[in-house]
């Protein structure tokens, strides 16, 4: 009987499949594909929208500016649009496979907008939720500390993204820590994206083409981190004309040069940034003291690309960044010198090959390198005697990645790929070379290796006019030491259209993170150590569900979205009580056998996190006044068995309320011969951070052994006061509030422009809390003192320029 049933079902399936293919075969379909570029410089435009109003359907360009649409035979009106560019509209006759490349002209001023960018009307139609995209123009307009435009600080103004301490550029997304953000610069991982302890990010705005932050609903192509993916693309380089742009501000200067090596075929971009305060003070220090010292940070970006033919393109990009504190003292003897330095920096490199296999298939293959090192060094030369002590911590990656975009039929947009990275961890490397006591020399380097891989497939699947599904599956593996982890990560997102411009969206994701960041809360140094999951400390795992509503009002240039999320994480790690980041015992530093090796696994405890919240974002995209208002209500609790008595406690950056109100004013658009004026105003408010505040001291009583009490003392105590810290993170700092203003004066010339910007950071001189400390007054009474870093308005002035070859 079962055989009959099987054969019957099998025949039904065959008939259905034949019917489906026959039906499709009868509808002739053709593929239209190509690239969308910036007409001014040839840059590929990522996420440009291509829309067909007749069939209420469309697509967007991928990360390399490529698009593909399979359409039934017919005539269509194709609208191509991108933020900041004029929309193009053309008549499209689809009667064969066609290739169309589009060149988009930038918008010059508001009065030139005749067709409102209807890309915003399609935000409600996209299935991807929890995603923020920023353009370099938006980043340039926002007033920042010391006038330094900062990508990460701009993202902090969006709902769901919390900032850290005062002035910090770290981001905390939906309750996750800074280690749970995957930061990619041209596909290479950046492990520490901060300069000067987090005051500035490492990303030079002049070298960036676009940036997107995904907070939830992660597509299967992303993996390895739990909370967010910050995907940053560098500019490819102007392949039409040579251009130079740069800026000088309060603390740093930068310059970018880009241009065609072979016009319309190969181009390059080189960009550099450096602070200059130490250079200015060096002569003064040398003349007045017997040494010099200072601090600087610098970034260097470079990119080359070469178009082999219509279907193949090569890219080579790299980044070098460094922070360094240094001090050098000179002795009376020219050979005597002592140098101490504390520094850290990232290096990344990516080699990519884009290949368009056919009109429906696009493949990208990448070779990726990344390195992050933190280094403390002390060197002393006294004649023939030398002393060299070095402590460093490093993480180094070498990886390959292949991504495939395949659009077999209009209803399916399939992406699939593979990625594998070999990590080399050097959590601690201690090297001592002492010429006067060579017996005490040692070279203690602890190395660990691991291999992290991921295989994924995802499909954007249209089901009729209203439903759009985005299922995906990622299988990630991690091998370290004797342990191998292999875990499936299902992803699902769906969108249901309520009307033309409003929709409901839902998403569910599971993510694994195999790298841990050991972060010491007591110090302000970039001493965070990246370590791998292994047989003793497992990976982190998260589940996140989100529900959202999206509404676009294109005629009024408005969009509204709200999202609720719930996220749980297991396997979070924290230093156990009494643990130290140095991973060595300082008293054993000069032990004749060297400092004993301390296993980092013994220094940490494992726990979990629950985070949930509601985000609201209202945006106005165009007009004399535009900007956005973002609000987040959220709660994040941590729980570690060995911390806080096993009871849940709020995360340090748990902020109940977070509000950002960003306004841009186009006071006078710039034109040739007329100075343009733009203004911006930002207001931010956030609940204070949670910190652990000592409550008092007490004699901790401990009962001795009954019957054998010492000197009739039944209770043995430590003999001194123990500290009562109360519960973990039991105290809230004052709320954070800030108002920033800026004015930009733009003068355009035929071949470029100059912008002078005046800005005021913290206009109301609010004394926002940086940290608190217990101090004694002159009567010996304890008082709680709040320290503020920027307790007054910080004005800044900067000057930006750009000029290109005039054709």
């Amino acid at each position, binding site marked *: 009987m079962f055989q009959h049933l099987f054969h019957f079902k099998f025949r039904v399936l065959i008939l259905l499949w034949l019917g489906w293919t026959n039906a499709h075969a009868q509808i002739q379909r053709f593929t239209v594909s190509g690239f969308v570029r910036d007409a001014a410089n040839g840059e590929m435009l990522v996420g440009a929208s291509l829309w067909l109003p007749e069939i209420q359907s469309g697509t967007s360009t991928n990360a390399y500016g490529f698009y593909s649409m399979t359409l039934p035979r017919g005539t269509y009106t194709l609208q191509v649009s991108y933020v900041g560019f004029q929309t193009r509209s053309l008549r499209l006759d689809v009667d064969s496979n066609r290739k169309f490349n589009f060149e988009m002209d930038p918008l010059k001023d508001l009065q030139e907008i005749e067709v409102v960018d209807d890309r915003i009307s399609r935000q409600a139609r996209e299935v991807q939720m929890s995603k923020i995209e920023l353009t370099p123009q938006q980043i340039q307009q926002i007033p920042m500390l010391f006038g330094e435009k900062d990508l990460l600080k701009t993202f902090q103004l969006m709902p769901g993204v919390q900032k850290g301490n005062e002035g910090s550029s770290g981001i905390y997304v939906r309750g996750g820590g800074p280690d749970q953000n995957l930061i990619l610069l041209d596909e290479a991982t950046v492990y520490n994206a901060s300069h000067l302890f987090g005051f500035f990010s490492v990303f030079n705005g002049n070298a960036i083409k676009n940036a997107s932050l995904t907070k939830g609903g992660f597509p299967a192509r992303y993996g390895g981190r739990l909370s967010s993916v910050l995907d940053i693309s560098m500019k490819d380089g102007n392949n039409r004309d040579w251009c130079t742009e740069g800026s000088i501000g309060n603390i740093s200067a930068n310059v970018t040069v880009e241009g065609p090596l072979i016009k319309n075929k190969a181009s390059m971009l080189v960009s550099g940034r450096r602070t200059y305060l130490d250079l200015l003070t060096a002569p003064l220090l040398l003349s007045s003291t017997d040494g010099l010292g200072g601090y600087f940070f610098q970034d260097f970006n470079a990119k080359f690309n070469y178009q082999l033919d219509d279907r193949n393109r090569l890219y080579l990009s790299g980044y070098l960044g460094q922070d360094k504190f240094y001090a050098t003292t000179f002795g009376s003897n020219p050979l005597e010198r002592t140098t101490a330095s504390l520094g850290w920096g990232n290096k990344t490199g990516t080699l990519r090959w884009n290949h368009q296999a056919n009109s429906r298939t696009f493949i990208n293959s990448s070779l990726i390198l990344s390195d992050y090192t933190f280094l403390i060094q002390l060197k002393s030369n006294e004649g023939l005697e030398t002393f060299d002590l070095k402590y460093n911590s490093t993480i180094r990656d070498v990886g390959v990645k292949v991504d495939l975009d395949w659009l077999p039929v209009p209803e399916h947009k399939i992406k699939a790929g593979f990625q594998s990275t070999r990590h080399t961890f050097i959590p601690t490397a201690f090297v001592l070379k002492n010429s006067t006591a060579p017996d005490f020399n040692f070279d203690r380097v602890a190395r660990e290796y691991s291999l992290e891989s991921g295989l994924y497939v995802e499909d954007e699947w249209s089901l009729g006019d209203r439903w759009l599904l985005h299922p995906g599956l990622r299988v990630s593996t991690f091998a370290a030491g004797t342990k191998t982890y292999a875990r499936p990560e299902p992803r699902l997102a769906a969108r249901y259209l309520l009307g033309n411009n409003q929709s409901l969206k839902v998403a569910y994701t599971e993510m694994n993170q195999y790298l841990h960041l050991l972060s010491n*809360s007591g110090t302000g140094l970039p001493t965070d150590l990246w370590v791998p999951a292994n047989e003793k400390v497992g990976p982190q795992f998260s589940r996140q569900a989100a529900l959202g509503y999206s509404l676009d009002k294109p005629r009024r240039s408005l969009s509204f979205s709200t999202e609720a999320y719930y996220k749980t994480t297991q396997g979070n790690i924290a230093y156990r009580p009494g643990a130290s980041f140095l991973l060595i015992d300082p008293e054993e530093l000069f032990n004749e056998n060297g400092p004993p090796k301390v296993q980092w696994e013994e220094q940490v405890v494992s726990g979990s996190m629950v985070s949930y919240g509601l985000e609201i974002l209202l945006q106005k995209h165009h007009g004399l006044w535009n900007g956005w208002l973002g609000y987040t209500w959220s709660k994040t609790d941590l729980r570690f068995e060995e911390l806080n008595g096993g009871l849940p406690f709020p995360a340090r950056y748990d902020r109940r309320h977070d509000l950002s109100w960003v306004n841009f004013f186009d006071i006078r658009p710039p034109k040739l011969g007329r100075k343009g004026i733009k203004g911006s105003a930002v207001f931010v408010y956030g609940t204070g951070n949670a910190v652990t505040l000592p409550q008092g001291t007490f004699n901790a009583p401990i009962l001795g052994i009954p019957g054998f009490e010492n000197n009739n003392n039944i209770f043995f105590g430590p003999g001194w006061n123990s500290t009562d810290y109360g519960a973990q993170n039991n105290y809230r700092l004052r709320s954070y509030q800030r108002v920033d203003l800026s004015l930009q004066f733009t003068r355009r010339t035929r071949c470029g422009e100059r912008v002078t910007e005046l800005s005021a950071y913290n206009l109301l001189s609010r004394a926002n809390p940086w940290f608190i400390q217990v101090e004694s007054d002159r009567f010996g009474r304890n008082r709680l003192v709040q320290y503020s870093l920027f307790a007054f308005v910080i004005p800044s*002035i900067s000057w930006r320029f750009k000029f290109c070859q005039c054709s």
Partner: protein
Amino acid sequence: MFLMLSFTAPRSFAFVIRTGYLVLGLFLGSCRPQFLDTVDLELPSKLVVGCNLVLESDPIFQNDSLFLKLNQSAPLFGQQANSDSGLAGATLRLVRQRPGLVPGPDDTLSVFGFDELRSVYGAKVRRNDGSSFVQEGFTYHLSVRSADGRSVESSTTVPVWRFSDTTMQVLVQGSPSTWTRSVQIRVQWRDLTGANGSQDPGYYRVNYRITGNPWFDEDRWLNDHMGWYPNQLVNVGTAVNGLFTWQDRVDLSMMPGDTMPSNGRLEVAIQRISPELFRYLRAVGQQDAQDGNPFSEPTVIPSNISNGLGCFGSCVQFRLSKPLPW
């Protein structure tokens, strides 16, 4: 003069001057630096309770009384409180609950006396029939109300402990011609109880003393200093197939010419302690070991005293004794 210049100078220069005014005006107009600000904060003093219910595995050693220490913390901010002396005049009540039963009239202990000399509260736990108020597996609820009206509560469950294969090995090294002796002790026991649920996988505390020697007070336990507490504590992580091991070494010295004692005994007390007491002892020792190291994580001392500090714990104690071969 500069103001006039800003209106009469060439256009670009005037712009720079006006800009400078604007920047300077912004700066001066709102400059009220407030880098330091005192935060008004009043914190209350908390009651500190220390009490440990001890059940001896051999009834011969069972104590007649239990003791409770009550004092208060000194808050960092606000009205200072004396944290050194005990607080007299408090009302204490200890209720015993058998597993699965409601406490009866015989299950309440409310007569506590205050010993001024030792600054502790005590209550008699041995009944007229010789039985002890403290029994294994029972849960004890403590409530304390201080003379000034503050009250705290706590509870603990006396562990159930079955064990076997208890051995103690002692090695004494040194020679009659030297004035030092090194005593190495190794104690093993096999736990038959197993874990009392996931919250109590097995926590132990070990202490020892050497009697009949001139170097130390006979009544003093050798590793009672706070710094030794990590050495005292043993948990299930160190056990192999249910067999626990604890070991230590102590070096003893005497002055030349002293007479070597003819006898000596080593006494070891092994306690199976309640989980809250284990965490409390471990945290106190960890905080001591931190000793102001700015690079180490602060240690929070957990307390099972609601609205208070300290620990109300319990244990079952087993003693071993062995002569020392000097």
